[in-house]
């Protein structure tokens, strides 16, 4: 299933995506819509609840980034980008603290899509149905990536997880403002291209460093890519081909850069040291 095919079906994009899902799973379109609506509600609820909150994460490598960003008056980011960044960081930290999240596409990248949705709702007065339709388009983008490549960091590196999240969020924004499937595909392609090659290297195997901050950055890549698409900028390489390229790059990544916690940032002296310190703390806690 290529995104191109979904686009050329001749019916509104969200409808066509749900129709295809129904054909595959047998779940009626109305029920699917309601499920998507529930997921969107949980995302927005959690964004509200966790906004700028400090978290006690499992490893304790992160936990106050959302809070720092929330209490900082942005010097360069727009109000929209700032708010989306706060949500992305806060939800990623909530995930690391065993909070409730919606995997999108995974737990590690769970802050990106809610980040843009929350900002649309709060700052652009987004109406429910339009937001839901755009969210379904984002789902369609993620779904195509999953079908033709992978969305798992362990298989394709962080480009597969965070790159997919950014592609989804940029398509969501673009569809929201333009209702154009082509433009949404351009935005998704530009966002994914910008994350191409990103490796998965969580320190100690914990979904904290660099994952939390990558949520905060990916959401801004999504916003910039969408802004470009709104300006009429097109991706020279079409979305479906970018997905194929991402897949090939993912396959050529060595295992040490695919969620093993052995390569990349995880192999730096500082990473080794904080992991060692943590292990010592855990051991002494167990003994008590």
């Amino acid at each position, binding site marked *: 299933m290529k995104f191109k095919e979904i686009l050329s079906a001749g019916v509104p994009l969200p409808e066509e995506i*749900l129709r295809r899902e129904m054909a595959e799973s047998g*779940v009626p379109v109305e029920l699917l819509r309601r499920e998507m609506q529930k997921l969107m509600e949980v995302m927005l609820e959690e964004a509200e609840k966790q906004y700028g909150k400090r978290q006690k994460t499992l490893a304790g490598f992160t936990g106050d980034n959302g809070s720092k960003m929330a209490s900082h008056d942005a010097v360069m980011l727009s109000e929209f980008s700032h708010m989306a960044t706060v949500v992305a960081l806060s939800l990623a930290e909530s995930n690391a603290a*065993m909070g409730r*999240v919606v995997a999108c596409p995974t737990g590690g990248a769970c802050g990106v899509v809610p980040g843009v949705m929350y900002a649309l709702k709060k700052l652009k007065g987004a109406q429910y149905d339009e937001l839901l339709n755009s969210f379904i388009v984002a789902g369609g983008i993620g779904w195509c990536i999953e079908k033709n490549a992978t969305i798992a960091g362990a298989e394709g590196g962080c480009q597969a997880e965070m790159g997919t999240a950014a592609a989804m969020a940029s398509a969501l924004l673009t569809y929201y403002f333009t209702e154009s499937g082509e433009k949404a595909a351009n935005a998704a392609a530009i966002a994914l291209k910008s994350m191409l090659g990103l490796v998965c290297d969580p320190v100690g195997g914990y979904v904290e460093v660099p994952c939390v901050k990558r949520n905060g950055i990916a959401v801004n890549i999504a916003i910039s890519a969408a802004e470009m698409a709104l300006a009429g900028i097109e991706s020279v390489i079409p979305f479906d081909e970018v997905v194929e390229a991402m897949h090939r790059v993912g396959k050529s990544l060595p295992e040490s850069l695919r969620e093993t916690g052995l390569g990349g940032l995880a192999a730096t002296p500082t990473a080794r040291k904080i992991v060692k310190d943590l292990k010592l703390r855990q051991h002494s806690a167990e003994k008590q």
Partner: protein
Amino acid sequence: MSLLDVVGPVMVGPSSSHTLGALRIARFVYKFVGGMPDRVEFVLHGSFADTGFGHGTDKALLAGIMGMHADDERIRDALRIANEKRLDYSFSVEDLGDVHPNTILVRANKNGKMTEIRGSSVGGGEIEINRINDCECSLSWEFHTLVLVIKDVPGAMGQILGDVRVNISNLYLKRIDALRKIAVGIVETDEEISEDCLREIENSRFVEEMYYIGRDADEI
């Protein structure tokens, strides 16, 4: 994977295989034994054993065995809640042999009866229950699951299946004790089996034990 696996599920962090999958395995056991057991032992294998404690696998397992759903916000406090409920639990690490890297063995004791279930978290929160007591199987719990200990006599399974009265997706049958003439049958169905049907099956003269583990409603 379906659209709702790409977006969703609602879960507690941080990792779908280390928390969500672990919770679902324990929750399957909870439903299988008919509630929170009196005593439970979790044997962790492979990656669960290496990184499980840091990823909250212990909390997820306890939450599941106490019957919590995957999106329950009390999961992070599961250790404390288990102590409050006076659940007798223990964790150990063991090499379970040639099994999936994220595998766990749960030994649960409820009302003096011991149940042993082995499951693997195979990614994205999906699970595979691969052994129930001595019976090897491969259950995804994407269906409603009926586990039966039946008399191993001609026609037994045929008659029981007649009572199920919904579409059967998968069926396993295995003799477990030739001497006592006992077999285990596992039936997976798309639709829920009605209480009336279940009662009829349970009362069948061929059925010695019956366990019905309905799929969680929130998991499409």
